[in-house]
């Protein structure tokens, strides 16, 4: 059974069929098999959050999920969210606020921030920090990121930033 297994899943709305080894994690499957390299691999044990993707609509660590576990699932990566325009305003706010820092955490920060904004339209800064707390990587600060998320929330509510 260490042989490869057949999986069939949706990735960013497209059907994907593949043969994968059980040991292959979802992050490596996305990056190396599908060349979706917006999903970053940092610590590979669930701490840095850089590999965050959506599976069946919920954010997860793709380094802590096996590709074989996504059989039948719907996976969305930063490429999907970006191409569909779902987070265009959030991306613009990150640009405006210079919220990229070194940039390694950015795709997953956007993932986590969008997840928060879908659940809470009007989060306060403490809630933003708490929701992004799983994405602290190796930089520090993160204030501009909090600003960008807060600004996006306000604009989506129809307020001035």
């Amino acid at each position, binding site marked *: 059974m*260490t042989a490869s297994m057949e999986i069939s899943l949706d990735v960013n709305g497209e059907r994907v069929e593949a043969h994968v080894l059980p040991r292959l*994690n979802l992050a490596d499957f996305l990056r190396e098999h599908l060349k979706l390299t917006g999903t970053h691999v940092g610590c590979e*044990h669930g701490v840095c959050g850089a590999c965050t993707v959506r599976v069946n609509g919920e*954010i997860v*660590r793709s380094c802590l999920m096996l590709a*074989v576990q996504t059989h039948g699932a719907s996976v969305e990566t930063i490429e999907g969210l970006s191409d569909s325009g779902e987070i265009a305003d959030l991306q613009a706010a990150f640009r405006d606020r210079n919220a990229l820092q070194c940039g390694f955490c950015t795709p997953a920060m956007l993932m*986590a921030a969008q997840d928060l904004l879908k659940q809470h339209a009007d989060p306060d800064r403490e809630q933003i920090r708490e929701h992004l*707390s*799983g994405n602290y990587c190796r930089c520090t600060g993160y204030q501009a990121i909090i600003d960008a998320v807060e600004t996006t929330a306000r604009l989506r509510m129809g307020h001035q930033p």
Partner: protein
Amino acid sequence: MKASAFSYARATSVVNALELLVAHGDKAKVLSGGQSLMPAMNLRLISPELIVDIGEIAELRGIAVRGDVLCIGALTRHVDLLRSPEIAAYVPLLKEAVAHVAHPAIRNRGTLGGSLAHADPASELPACMVALNATIIVRGQAGERRIAAENFFTGIYETALSAQELLISVELPVAQKNSRHFFHEFARRHGDYALVGLAAQAIVEGDVFADLRMAFFAVGDRPVLAKAAKKLVNVALTPAVLSDASTALGEEIDPQEDHQASASMRRHLAKVLLRRCTSELLGRPDLSARGPV
């Protein structure tokens, strides 16, 4: 790092999972939410030959109230506990504790059964089970065993669960109307493992504890149900009584030293939590006043 090679089987039922576990013994590992198992495999701390994925077994999911008992299936995820109206109403301690477990993306995958079977002495849910006097139900091919949470955790990452058994569910007594709870942990950052934590469940009559179960975590090789709490039950609480209990707690626990904290720091923080918990549950701010701890 990457996990070493392994075989993978998707169990279709509890019976099927048990067949696989019996056939492969301790060469197999059960995959639930994977939020502790996968890091351990990626770091090559463990290299099982077979992964038995129980994630699709629907009968292990769900939260149900049966009389004065709340039953939670092993595959119930942290996020399910956090959002459940039954948990909020009947075991509010658990809801409060889950908010401290890691981060949203982890809570979307991590499961109650996985956390209990993993038995990290610094994690929140094992201590909650001890404080709440939970019964942990495990099943093997010979039948079911019902194990009191106090007896389930036997050491660092060690439990009473054998390699041929599966954790099925937990049963928790529903909180009575004069029940109160306390949860607090000290951690370097929100979501990190605790330096020291306390989950407590009490019954308060007037201004006296009729019952008090204090389960400390990250102060030993398993959650510790503090015997010192007995000194606080059925007595009029005075600073002297509290000091006595605090001293007893310090002697009772044997915290480990690591890169995060020394043993004496952990002992001190545990005493601080004992004091805060007592003060908060009885509504006695005078007891939390800074004194010798």
